[in-house]
């Protein structure tokens, strides 16, 4: 249904109604921005990259193959631009914001606190993954793309995608485990003192 609507809008744009592309932007801006943000970890860069994603998509709209979902195509552009950016800049992604580097300061209710801490830790762990692995984790587990779609997006063979994703999952798990263990040691020390 959503896909049909996307295709309808794209047809209108290709027939000369350029303003309708605004609807596509409205529909995918948060998704694209989130991918860029999680990939590069910097709000300004993510903003530039997501704008570049939409501009590139618009300029190459004739190359879009309607057999695939539009979301897959635009996420592909966002991911590739982000990976290119990270490779170009050899940018070591920073924590998403100040809160993430100090995740234990403001929560009041225990549930909220634990939930947010967990989210922040996950964000931190994702940031620490290498760019290719990060893209796989985001596309598969966050954006819900299939293996086949990821192969199309990353232009990689299926075996490589599977191996990398499995490795990325293991890294994610190990890092999360380490962080939690560090935290529990820290909490124990705090309680003792």
């Amino acid at each position, binding site marked *: 249904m959503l896909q049909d609507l996307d295709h309808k809008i794209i047809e209108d*744009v*290709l*027939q*000369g109604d*350029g*303003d309708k*592309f*605004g609807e596509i*932007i*409205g529909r995918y*801006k*948060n*998704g*694209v*921005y*989130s991918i860029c*943000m*999680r990939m590069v970890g910097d*709000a300004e860069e*993510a*903003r530039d990259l*997501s*704008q570049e994603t*939409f*501009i590139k998509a*618009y*300029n190459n*709209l004739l190359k879009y193959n309607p057999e695939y979902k539009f979301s897959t195509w635009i996420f592909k552009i966002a991911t590739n631009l982000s990976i290119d950016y990270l490779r170009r800049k050899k940018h070591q992604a920073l924590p998403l914001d100040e809160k993430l580097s100090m995740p234990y300061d403001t929560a009041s209710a225990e549930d909220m606190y634990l939930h947010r801490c*967990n*989210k922040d*830790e*996950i*964000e931190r*762990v*994702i940031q620490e993954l290498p760019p290719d692995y990060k893209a796989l*984790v*985001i596309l598969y*587990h*966050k954006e819900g793309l299939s*293996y086949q779609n990821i192969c199309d997006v990353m232009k990689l063979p299926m075996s490589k995608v*599977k191996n990398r994703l*499995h490795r990325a*999952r*293991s890294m*994610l*798990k*190990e890092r*999360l*485990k380490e962080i939690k263990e560090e935290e529990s040691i820290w909490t124990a020390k705090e309680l003792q003192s």
Partner: protein
Amino acid sequence: MDCKRASELTMKYFDQTINDFEKKELDCHITACSTCRLDFQWMREALEGVEELEDFEAPENFEIEVLEQLDLKRYEPKPVPSKIQFWLALTVPCVFAILSIGFYIRFGTIDWKDGYTGAVSFMRVIDLGNRMYGLLGLTGKALGETFFVFIKALKYMSAFLNSRMGIYMTIVAFLCSILVFTQYVLIKLTDVFGYRGGRSYEK
């Protein structure tokens, strides 16, 4: 089942490609093996955590900023030239071509000595115009080519002078010119002041 197999099945579980039999197999193993059980739980916590992450909100005015950078008329259909324009564009050069051929056959091939009619005078003026035009063209072409050769020569010269051999040659040429200049000055001195330098010279 060993732990390696359990690890493979864990991945299949999170790929959602695990079948019932494999699921039971995995279940049995992680019930018995605490290491794999913990690994499985950590993995689930990590991946569920990723799945539950919320989207970031795109910045304010994001759409407007993007739309401002797009050429919104990019896909507008380009105006097709009307049929009248097409036929006019085709007919006018054809008419002129036919007229030119006609004029040439009628007047361009006659013996000019027959007499000067108005048409012949007109053709002569046109002919003169053509010759002048040709001359101008040839002059322009010759000047252009000379300029081009000059620029090219400068380019080669600069490339040569920048090369190691070019530098050596420049030094040699400079030393030679000093030598020639000194010789010239000495000869002049001999000529003008009769300086003989120990030998006799005719003034």
